[in-house]
């Protein structure tokens, strides 16, 4: 299936694409192999853009799960505003239209000397270049009483799927008047506005169905992303429903009592009907295993090619990276993956690498028809990645502007997931 698509492609363009790619490439040339580990936003985007960059690159994508549910927009599902299916995307298009070899398996090792990726099934995939996009792992040593087993009772729902369904069920079962406690993590973490978007949309849900219920956010931090926008929205839409307590007030969250469903801070113990702990985070497990992680817990990378600073020949994109000023977001993972793919393709085809255009633009729902957005451009500088321009929605915007942004957000989701998954 894959080779047929490629052959047809070559014939239909009269071989012009191949000829233009590089002086020494022809149909008989052995293909360069790139392995992509992880089929989240970073991995799927990297695989696609590598495949599109040159028909002489053979791309293999290894992902354990049969499909991918986006964590972004999953707060809408928690509020009962969309189905989880609508947020779930398969790998068929990447396999069939782009000729990517999609393997549903787990990667257990990457050998940078032999240049092979070891799979749980026992196979070894040879590569010329490898892109690792393992996402995040949770630090289960940070909060006493909150280990991996605890997530089955007190979900984090910070990887979308069964965890999100569990939290939704708990919110649905909650009686009116109950308290939903959300434990927000320290920096850096996946998606800076998301815990507060979650509080906002759960408040929306409570307002419709359980209006006497309350939300308490116990934060590891003393301030949070777009705080002015959230506080303004909470006052306008959910007055009296959401309370945010910073670390300087509580002394920080110390322990979770899973059986009692309570959260202990330095100063108090808060009992809840539903608890959502978003634990402190670090780079995904595989990155730690391969030695891509520094003492920060994240993967330092070259700001232009996203090659690991610790392991040459291995590239890292997405949430697992330590990428200067870039936050951890799906949009950033997609942006980094493109820059990385183009850089690798340039090396493998002997052509000029285009300058990277790193960008982030996130839509945040304060209510179903009140959305805000930001737009941040970045560029490599002084060995790291720095913000160039940073624009964000304003507190005084009209309701119509916010409604338009909510419509744009839905439109963005459709375009972005198509861009990533094909």
């Amino acid at each position, binding site marked *: *299936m894959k080779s*047929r*698509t490629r052959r*047809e*492609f070559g014939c*239909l*363009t009269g071989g*012009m*694409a191949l000829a*233009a*790619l590089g002086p020494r490439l022809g149909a008989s040339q052995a293909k360069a192999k790139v392995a992509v580990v992880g089929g989240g936003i970073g991995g799927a985007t990297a695989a696609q*853009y590598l495949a*599109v*960059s*040159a*028909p002489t690159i053979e791309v293999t994508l290894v992902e354990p799960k049969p499909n991918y549910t986006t964590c972004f927009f999953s707060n809408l599902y928690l509020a009962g505003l969309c189905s989880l299916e609508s947020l779930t995307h398969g790998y068929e*298009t990447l396999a*069939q*239209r782009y000729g990517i070899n999609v393997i549903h398996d787990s990667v257990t090792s990457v050998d940078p000397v032999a240049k092979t990726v070891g799979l749980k099934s026992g196979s070894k995939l040879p590569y010329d270049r490898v892109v690792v996009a393992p996402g995040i792992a949770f630090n289960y040593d940070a909060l006493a009483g909150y280990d991996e087993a605890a997530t089955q009772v007190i979900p984090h729902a910070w990887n979308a799927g069964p965890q999100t369904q569990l939290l939704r069920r708990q919110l649905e079962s909650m009686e009116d008047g109950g308290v939903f406690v959300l434990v927000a993590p320290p920096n850096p973490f996946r998606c800076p506005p998301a815990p507060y978007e979650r509080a906002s949309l759960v408040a929306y849900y409570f307002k419709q169905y359980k209006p006497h219920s309350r939300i308490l956010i116990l934060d590891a931090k003393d301030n949070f992303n777009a705080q002015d926008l959230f506080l303004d929205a909470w006052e306008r839409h959910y007055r009296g429903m959401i309370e945010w307590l910073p670390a300087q007030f509580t002394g920080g969250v110390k322990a979770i009592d899973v059986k009692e469903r309570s959260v202990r801070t330095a100063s108090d113990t808060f009992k809840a009907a539903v608890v959502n702990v978003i634990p402190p985070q670090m780079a995904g497990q595989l990155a730690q295993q391969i030695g891509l992680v520094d003492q920060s817990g994240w993967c330092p990378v070259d700001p232009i090619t996203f090659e690991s600073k610790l392991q040459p020949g291995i590239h890292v994109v997405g949430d697992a990276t330590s990428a200067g000023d870039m936050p951890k977001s799906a*949009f950033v993972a*997609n*942006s980094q993956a*493109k820059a990385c793919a*183009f850089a690798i393709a340039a090396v493998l085809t002997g*052509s000029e690498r*285009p300058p990277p*255009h790193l*960008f982030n*633009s996130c839509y945040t729902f304060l209510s179903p028809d009140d959305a805000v*957005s*930001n*737009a*941040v*451009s970045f560029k490599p500088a002084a060995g790291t990645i720095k913000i*160039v*321009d*940073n*624009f*964000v*929605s304003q507190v005084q915007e009209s309701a119509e502007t916010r409604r338009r942004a909510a*419509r*744009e*957000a*839905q*439109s*963005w989701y*459709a*375009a*972005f997931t*198509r*861009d990533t998954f094909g």
Partner: protein
Amino acid sequence: MRKIIAVSIAASSFIILADRSQAADRDGGAQLAAMCTSCHRLDGGDGGIPTILGMSPEMLTRAMLAYRSRERPSHIMRAVALSLNDEEIATVARYLAALNK
């Protein structure tokens, strides 16, 4: 059956793949357009984020310059326009205008 599906998918999408690959190798238009496709669908608009297809290079260039100067209000498009120099705007405008021709 799978072969038939593969052929029909390949046939219907080859235009985009072919154009993307050819243009990419001449002046970097495809790589620049990769920035656009994070938000703009290449299979038409849907009433939320506007389409960027079916316009001349001049129209696209004028739009980007209007976003850059804030004549057209959009903080997202302004950040995008500021991140591209004049040559890059011309390149991506040419590339997008040529798609699906």
